[in-house]
């Protein structure tokens, strides 16, 4: 095309219509090319610049290779054995070193993998755990109101009881939050099953029926305005 353009420019002036025949289709082609690349760009940004791509799957190494799958899944420890404040506080606390030492002062008390825990317990210096699940600073997510009103850990954190290393499984984007706040009946479960990550309603219809009754009886009305989460 460039060559043809150069030929076109170099040729001596012609009488009548100066444009060659192929130039009739050129504007349409250019437009189609621009539209296609624009659409590709938008699609790429939509995928690669969102939480879905950037955050889901974030699985950092921790200072101590704590195996949630073993402790929670195999041993069957309840989430709240370690995350004690989840029902009382907006923060679901990462357990203090003393909680680890409840067992590990007896079990595997000489394991080299647990050296950072023993050091922390001896010195009082905190263990520098790496934060996995993050929402922006201008978002206030209170754990207490969710877990005490039938929203399971699994809804945002995935099957932690099957993870050897915890990673982010859900996008935690604003639309992720709003999907649930608009249709809470799809996620609600009996409050005694909140920490039972494996629990599932027998069927989608049963979930909808149970969830709708929960929404009605507990007067569930999740906030959907800015002020619900942004203060």
């Amino acid at each position, binding site marked *: 095309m460039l060559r043809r353009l150069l030929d076109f420019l170099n040729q001596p002036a012609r009488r009548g219509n100066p444009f060659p025949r192929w130039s009739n289709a050129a504007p349409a082609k250019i437009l189609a090319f621009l539209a296609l690349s624009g659409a590709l760009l938008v699609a790429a940004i939509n995928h690669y610049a969102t939480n879905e791509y*950037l*955050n889901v799957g*974030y699985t950092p190494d921790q200072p101590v290779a704590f195996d949630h799958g073993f402790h929670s899944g195999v041993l069957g420890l309840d989430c709240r054995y370690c995350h004690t*404040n989840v*029902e*009382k*506080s*907006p*923060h679901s*606390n*990462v*357990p*203090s*070193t*003393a909680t680890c030492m409840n067992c590990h002062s007896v079990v595997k008390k000489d394991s080299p993998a647990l050296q950072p825990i023993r050091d*922390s*317990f001896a*010195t*009082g*210096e*905190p*263990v*520098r*755990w*790496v*934060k996995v699940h*993050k929402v*922006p*600073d*201008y978002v*206030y997510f*209170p754990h*207490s*109101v969710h877990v*005490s*009103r039938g929203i399971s850990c699994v809804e945002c954190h995935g099957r932690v009881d099957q993870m050897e290393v915890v990673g982010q499984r859900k996008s935690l984007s604003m639309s992720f939050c709003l999907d649930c*706040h*608009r*249709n*809470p*009946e799809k996620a609600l479960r009996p*409050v005694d099953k909140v920490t039972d990550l494996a629990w599932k309603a027998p069927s989608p219809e049963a979930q909808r029926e149970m*969830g*709708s009754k929960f*929404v*009605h*009886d*507990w*007067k*569930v*009305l*999740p*906030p*959907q*305005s*800015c*002020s*619900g989460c*942004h*203060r």
Partner: protein
Amino acid sequence: MSKRVFVHPEPKAGEPAPWRSLEERNKSPEFRSRAEREFLDGAATFDPVDRRAFLSLMGASFALAGLGLAGCREPRQHTLPYARTPEMTLPGVPTFFATSFPGELANQPILVETHSRRPTKVEGNPSHPASGTASSKLAQASILDLYDPDRATVSVGPDGAALTSAQVRDRLAALGRELEAAGGAGLAFLARPSTSPTRARLVAAIKARFPKALWAEHTPVDQSAGDRAVGPGIRALPNFAAAKRVVSLDADFLGSGDAQVEATRAYAAARRADTAEQAKGMVRLYVAESLHTLTGAAADHRLPLATSAIPALALHLLDQVRRQLGQASVGELPKLDVDPAWVRECAADLVANRGASLVVAGAHLPAAAHGCVQAINDLLEAVGRTLEYVRTDAAPAASLRDLALARPSALVILGGNPAYDAPADAGLADVLAAAKTIVRVGLHGAEHDDTTAAVRARGGLFVASTHYLESWSDGRALDGTYVPVQPMIAPLYDGVAETEVLALLAGQSADALGLVRATFESVARAVGRDASAAAFEAWLAEGVLPGTAFPRALAGTVSTPVAPAAPALSRASLEVRLVPSAHAGDGLFGNNAWLLEQPDPMSKTCWENVVLVSPALAKELEIEPEPMVINRIGQLNRNINQLVDGKLTCRVVRVTLGGRTVEGPAFILPGLAKWTVGLQLGFGRKAVGRAGARVTERLSENRIVGVGFDAYPLATSAAPLGAAGATLELTGETVVVANTQDHWSMEGRDLIREGTPGEFAKNPTFAARLGLDGHLPSPLGTGKDAATPLAVAAVTTPRGNSAYEHPDHAVPPNVAVWQGRADAPVPQQWGMSIDLNTCTGCNACVTACQAENNIPVVGRSQVLKGRDMRWIRLDRYFFDGREQAGMDIPENPQVTFLGVACQHCENAPCESVCPANATVHDEEGLNTMAYNRCIGTRYCANNCPYKVRRFNYLDYNDRQIGRFYEGPLGPKGMAEPLKMQKNPDVSVRMRGVMEKCTYCVQRIQEAKIQAKVRAGASGDTKVRDGAVQVACQQACPAGAIEFGDITDAGSRVAKAKASPRTYGLLTYLNVRPRTTYQAKLRNPNPRMPGASAAPLSRLELAGREGVHPAPAHGGKGH
């Protein structure tokens, strides 16, 4: 029928209107041009750099942005749990500690909110009924002093070496042993007065160990001087709540002092006017004062009178009271330049309300005045009804003068700042020069404290002390109730508490907790209460020990009241008054940025002090060339306070008293006594921290620097708070003063509605029918909409004004299950009511809002540009009435305060213009502000009729004052300790974001979350009335603010809004504000000279075109 269009009624030239500044009153061209612009000149421009510099800055930022692209992912963050979680700690849930804010007259019982042990906010302690949930602005702001980045981090030895606290303890113990042998000969202490019984005990122990030692106390503003005049150890406790008539003689009980919260609360209780019946019985306040204070602003009858003439007035009043009670006259009366009818009628009103009337006098007045006041109160049978005398436990202390005479060789200076605030003739400099060993205990090192600097210059030992939120101590509330001072955070730096210093010198163990514990036991036993460890814990948890109030006492009888004749004052012999400034107090708050930036309630000046002069005195000043403005009736007026380029420009004056001079900018404050000059203390310190220091902003062309002038040179030992015989002259200089009185001008709209109890009885809804409102359907359930109760109106009136979709209560909530169901839960609707009748303008709400909502401080030069960020604008309006309209500057105008924050309009004009949908309504009626969505067009602020939106022009939170303009490579981040004060539940806003009052949405959400957690399967998710208290409401000493669910007819806010005095601001715009006001009632005595039948604001309103006085037919308007 054509649609009626309502526009703002513009006051015409020549018509009276409320005014905030003299320029506004006179409608000067400069004021007009300023008011016509939404943002102040310079506010919306990036002035320190030109286009070229801007491009280079931008180039640098793009380059940096390119570098930054390498890290596309979020930075790695860590979670640091406790190794062992301390008791009572729930990360994310605040813990409240009961403690008290130490004062010199009284400690203020408070609760301190801590997040993971970081104190973030001060609240009143409701266990102390006299103050309730209220707290003063000083108590609120004291939390910032804990995190003062300029606090000393280490102690410094005589050789200049840093000392650890352990080394300091050793040295103090050794010093004690060294001095013990000589019985403490040559040892002296200099401290501030304190209410702490533990300190009193330690002082006694020190006197026992060192019998020859001297214990001196000094405070520049002695609050107990008046009580001492009544009798040693006696305190007069006025009970304003029981009073129907109060006369204040130069006493600013509503505006300053340690008793302010209690006094305001009691006064507001006596001022409540929920019904016409109550209004008729409400308190009437007479004030005679030389300056214009908050108490004077609240007065029903105010008499500007020089302080030196007040004792004579007191004697005249006593004479009148005696004669009207049929007793003998007091004899010969000194000459008094006051209308005799004023005194006669005032006395008649007091006598007519015998048993329910009260006279109070300022602590700075001479004993003669207090003697007269005591005699009047006896005659009025006040004691036991509106006044109690109690016996305090205050131990006598030596004075600064005794200290100078003693010439100690070893001196211990505890707290305070005597090198700055002691009168020059007290000889403190000589004492310091003569002392061989000096120990200075204070919060600030030599660079930031005058006294530490003086002590270190003489090779003294500096002991870094701890803040009261880090230390164990105790104290007594105003009525004597025993209150703790307990630490809630480990000392930020390696400091030693004052209690420990005294204990070590007394030869005791430095166990402050043990000392307080022992004091508690003795105090508890003395009143026959349980003194066990459990009782001690209970006391710490509760914050007060009931039954420990001071015992009642009898004041001695007044022999023969006398009063000196007032000195003749004139232009050549002025009276000087030194008063603590609203910002820095007597200087101890000189580095507190919240207070420094907060406008003085009356002068509206911030970041500096001014010389207050009366309009009459200003007129006498000879200024060349004479600045003239044309007033509204076409006369030329002299005006020495001018707006130049939108900034208040003041003449610098030199005040000379007894050969000592002080220079400062003169500010005309209408209402001052003619020949009285007011100077505010606390500024001009030679050594002070970064907030109080002279700050120039780099890159800025602003040539004006400095924070105020030092007024202490005019103080003497004999007259520490001013005297007569001063002269004042112009220096010829002019300076710009950071004054906010014209910021966010409302341009004379009829915002203020006032009435009298009589009118209230006849026409209860007078306020809602004034102005254009008489023609309109009422915003929420009054007037034409009276058939629609508030609860219904709040959820049926159309709402929201966004260009986009917005929540609408007419449609069921956007949850599938609830679609189309009649039993869907109805969101609660939040609203606020502010009672202007009890508001005294004390600024507690403004400070509380700043602390709660992480509102940044912007610095003096930003304030000059009109970029101040406080969400509550406490406007001070003057009214001078029509009869005075022709006068130059009115001498004694009426004052009304109007606190304006976001009104949360149902039809919010800000919402319709936001292109980013960043400000929208939520389903509970809040006008929300999503910071993360805001792109900073400022259209919302342009369109807000109330002018309550504030824009972050610069990175006020992430840059330090004075370093805002330093480009992308400039230092970022707020000073380290200040980060700890921030409320973790509120976003810290960034540059380019609009912000405004949120109705403390974080508190609402927290209450909702708690209600939902508590509800469980019961489905009772409603937030109970009183579970949400917004910060301003909680702090308000007058209880003027109510907040809650307006759909709940039983809620306090709904009851307040149901008051017939309720009206809204600018309701004719049909914006339907959620915040409404209750009109102020003035309670004039018709027999008083100069009494106006209606408030001056009403007389002015009546004259305005399109604005009608209350319609006589009281029905539907017309």
